[in-house]
């Protein structure tokens, strides 16, 4: 991930046809390329211009989908599965361990901007519950030890 500039936003937007059905694809692409993993107000404006739709429509979509965020987040996004299966096996423990270790509340970002911890719905890794995702990678069968090891990788 290099320096994030207006030029890069233009480059990304140029890859997509000016059709509204590409909105989610564009949002994913911009968010994934942003070092703070979010959709900024400037980017929302740029998307609205590109697709020739109102900014409120873009905001509406960003606000609806749980993977998208209009608030800056950490460099590494930890999404802890809190669906019924993971919860039964022990996702509360995962959340408690992570928030304690990183000294933040659920949904917050660490002071150094390195991690954000969020809870999310079923990640489809139920046979290895409890599980979580860090950025785009999936991890399962979590224990206090494996969580500590995992954090060291980032």
């Amino acid at each position, binding site marked *: 991930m290099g320096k994030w500039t207006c030029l890069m936003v233009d480059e990304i937007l140029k890859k997509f046809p000016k059709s509204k059905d590409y909105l989610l694809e564009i949002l994913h692409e911009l968010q994934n390329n942003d070092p703070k993993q979010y959709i900024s107000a400037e980017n929302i404006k740029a998307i609205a211009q590109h697709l020739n739709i109102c900014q409120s429509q873009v905001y509406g979509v960003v606000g609806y989908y749980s993977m998208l965020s209009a608030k800056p987040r950490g460099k590494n996004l930890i999404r802890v599965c809190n669906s019924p299966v993971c919860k*039964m096996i022990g996702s509360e423990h995962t959340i408690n361990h992570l928030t304690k270790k990183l000294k933040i509340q659920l949904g917050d970002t660490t002071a150094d901007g390195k991690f954000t911890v969020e809870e999310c719905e079923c990640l489809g890794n*139920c046979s290895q*519950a409890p599980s979580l995702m860090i950025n785009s990678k999936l991890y399962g069968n979590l224990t206090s030890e494996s969580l500590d090891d995992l954090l060291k990788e980032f």
Partner: protein
Amino acid sequence: MAKEVRIALRNSGVINPESIDEYITADGYQALRKSLRSSQSGIYDEIIESGLRGRGGAGFPTGTKEKTTALICTDCEKYVVCNADEGEPGTFKDRVIMETDPHSLIEGMIIAGYSINATRGFVYIRGEYALSIERVQHAINKAREYKFLGTNILGSGFDFDIEIRRGAGSYLCGEELTLLESLEGKRGYPRIKPPYPAEKGLWGKPTLINNVETLANFPPIILNGAVWYKSIGTDKSPGTKIFTLSGDLCNPGYYETPTSITLRELIYDFGGGIRNGKKFKAALLGGAAGTFASEKFLDVQMGYDKLKEQGLTLGSGAIVVIDETRDLIETLESILKFFKHESCGKCIPCRIGTTQIYHDICCFNEMSAIDRDKTYKNILNQAEVMAKTSLCPLGQSPILPLKSLWQNFSDYLVSTSK
């Protein structure tokens, strides 16, 4: 001991999912060649004859849906959409297919596209499934390279191409009409049904929507015939089903078996029995929008029809096994919390209802037996109203776990000694 019969997962773990050549060696794209030589009606008639039912959860006869979409108009634009927005808690079968054998999905989609005379296909994959997205995109690229996708496919004159669209974390978008809204670049709000997608789907055009597992069954059915497929499983839900086992089991995982398998065989032969030497208490069948089965249902066959006779559901094939030490109210609470969180808020019964029933169940464990009885019946009443008045399956679903828990575990629910 029961054995797996792999049809949708025939290549899973056998071939390299990133090698189209290995897929072709394993009879890959032979069904497409056969289809392109046959008439379009020949394909949907074969699927109707096979008795294949939608594997996403609803269990609607697949061929019938295909035929309706094919016949609704002859020269209008149509689409095929693959629902890969797998989000039902406890379900991960579509992820396994996409990660281990993406070409079977692509081939199934092209065949479906040919049978209804569509020109474009979309795979709507949930955004969290990064590896699935990567593998399916790779498979699409390779299929284009080998001329299985694009214009004049294999010299047949049929044009068809597929694109991936990513979801962004909404359970509701797994509902077919909501998925279409999302595909059009909008918030995932459900549409009023009817019109069904076969009449008015994506951008108002006739659209065939099928689940990943359903489509992965197309090539083997076309290749081996409906008679072969029908000979497997139960009479009214023939074929195989991928069951995803999770919870308190020794060997949780995914297993594809004929639908005639029993819950006991799944739990003990495949799942290896209950973890840590504990006893079985309940199984949640079909995920959050599913039903609780008690011990007396262990010998019921897992076909849609057989389970329905018992007031149970198969849904997406999720089986969450719960051992004797768990509190079922806690499980129920997490399910109701899930619905509350995922309710989109468009219709009032679901928006208010999911919040209200979650609120009511939260203090359940502190109540006296009489209060429990009263409270639970009140919750059931509310869920009944939601089922009758909500716009989409989300608001219609809480009644399933609630009612089955009441029917099969009423003594447990009102007893205060746990």
